[in-house]
């Protein structure tokens, strides 16, 4: 394989990324902060913080605490609201140099539709990522995206309204992820981000208090890697042609290659970017090295190539 034929670019159902290593939602700042810390032209893409219709002041502090190989966080989705976002942050994000996914979140169908409409006319938006881990205000569900009917309704409406590809970011810590994934794709999602952070709690023993100001939060970081791999594996086996973006516990090139082997098309780096803002570039480099070592041409050649035993459960035959 001559080096010149090798590429890191990936096509996620219509949106092309220069590399498969993106920065996850809520971990990319507002477009200015990363300058000088990473060359955003060498980052596969970035996802905005989750934007809501109205401005949100966000959660009480502390908003982040550590857990074994992880962080528990709750920003309360602080953001300036869609209008301010479109006016100020979006152009800055897009100018930074990487394909821009906009994460949208709400509690009702109407909010999602309004958010999508507001982004319709914006050429800066490479894709929409639908945040689905929030509370369903209409149905009073704890986690909106864990319920098939609501997932279908909301993802469907966003997909119908959007002019760009739509990625449904399924909530973390849910069973039957294949069913949810299938439903989201049937409803019109171009692809899936797997997964959001699962619900978590950290306790500060010294004060007998929750470690976070808003009590509960979500788990991110390396601890999640085996959960992410499992989800990607199951969904990719069920739907090998649907672009899957892995999120949760990815920080190094090896982590990313493991995800690609399990079936991911691209990966997002969240906590890893907070620790090492150049992580997405290093991850891309790691993927390139793997391609070279294995004599492969493109990230897609690694996808789903996990070598399985010929008889998945040999013991069953005993």
């Amino acid at each position, binding site marked *: 394989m001559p080096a010149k034929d090798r590429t890191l670019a990936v096509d996620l159902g219509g949106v092309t990324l220069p590399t498969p290593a993106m920065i996850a939602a*809520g*971990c*990319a*700042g*507002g477009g*200015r*902060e*990363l300058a*000088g*810390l990473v060359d955003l032209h060498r980052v596969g893409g970035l996802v905005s*913080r989750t934007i809501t219709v109205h401005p949100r*002041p*966000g959660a*009480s*502090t*502390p*908003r*982040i*605490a*550590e857990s*074994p*190989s*992880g*962080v528990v*966080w709750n*920003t309360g989705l*602080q953001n300036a609201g869609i209008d301010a976002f479109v006016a100020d942050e979006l152009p800055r994000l897009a100018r930074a140099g990487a394909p821009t996914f906009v994460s949208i979140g709400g509690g009702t169908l109407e909010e999602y539709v309004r958010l999508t409409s507001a982004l319709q006319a914006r050429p800066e938006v490479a894709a929409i990522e639908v945040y689905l881990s929030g509370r369903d205000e209409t149905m009073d569900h704890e986690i909106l995206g864990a319920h098939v009917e609501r997932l279908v309704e909301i993802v469907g409406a966003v997909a119908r309204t959007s002019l760009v590809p739509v990625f449904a970011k399924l909530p973390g810590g849910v069973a039957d992820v294949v069913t949810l994934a299938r439903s989201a794709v049937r409803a019109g999602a171009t692809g899936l981000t797997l997964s959001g952070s699962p619900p978590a709690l950290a306790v500060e023993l010294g*004060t007998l*208090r929750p470690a976070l*100001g808003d009590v509960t939060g979500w788990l991110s*970081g*390396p601890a999640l890697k085996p959960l992410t791999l499992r989800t990607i594996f199951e969904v990719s086996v069920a739907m090998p042609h649907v672009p899957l973006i892995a999120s949760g516990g990815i920080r190094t090139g090896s982590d990313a290659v493991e995800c690609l082997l399990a079936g991911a098309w691209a990966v997002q780096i969240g*906590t890893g*970017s*907070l*620790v*090492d*803002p*150049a992580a997405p570039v290093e991850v891309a480099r790691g993927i390139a090295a793997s391609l070279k070592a294995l004599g492969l041409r493109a990230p897609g050649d690694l996808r789903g190539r996990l070598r399985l035993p010929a008889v998945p459960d040999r013991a069953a035959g005993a």
Partner: protein
Amino acid sequence: MKRARAEILSTRKLGAYQSITLVAPEIADRARPGQFLAISMPAGRDFVLRRHFSIHQASRRGGWAGTLEFVVDPSSGPGTGWLSGVAAHEFLDVIGPLGKGFSFPKRLTNCMLVAEGRGAAELYFLAQELVARHKRVDMVIGAPTMEAVFKPIEAKRLSQTVAVVTADGSLGEKGSVLDVLPEAVARAGTEVLYAAAAPRTLRDVAEFCAVQRIPAQVAVEERMGCGFGLCATCVVPVARKEGGGFDNLRACVEGPVFNPARVLWDRWIADAATFRELRQAVATEDGDAG
């Protein structure tokens, strides 16, 4: 803001603290008092976030040019514990200088610096810069114990007067910085006040300054996911200049130095007195299994 793989030039114990000097010319060149560093933790640990440290010294000239010093309280937890054990000639992954530092008074002259514990480290850097600008510097330095009073001799060298207080009375007066602040301010004819201390102390200092109508700047600490503006975890509620309401501003970008008159202290500090017990707080669900 720069990222550097910085060699440790020296590391030494200073009372309760460990003082670490790095070779990091690009960061040292840019550093201002009140700014801080974000330092990577080693791979393979079960804690992952960077740790944050105020800049104690940035040498831009002379024999130490290009070096940067910060001070670690090793008792804080695993990250500071690890950092205090790192030896000279090892390397640290450092990002800095971060945040908005203190600004210097243009017209006013008499500056009071109020520090608790390791908060003194960054204020000495500030004192130096103030002295270089021909300001008068006075200090109130507090700590729980004598060992935790950071470099009292250095404080003396940099300021006209120094009031030292310890909670246990082992050095200086027994008490807290607030106990001696009014007298120190009166004596020094303080026109501007700077503080680096625990949140509750800063709140009390803010109140004092408001009553006394002394303009002030305080350096806060808040839990940080990154330290350079990506994650919006490190926020402090600050009143808007106009239009009412407040914004949750990032301590790592818009801070860590804030005007205390605009910080919504009671919103920011989760006051122990406002807590109550779980069983009282959450009503049992209606006649259910529970």
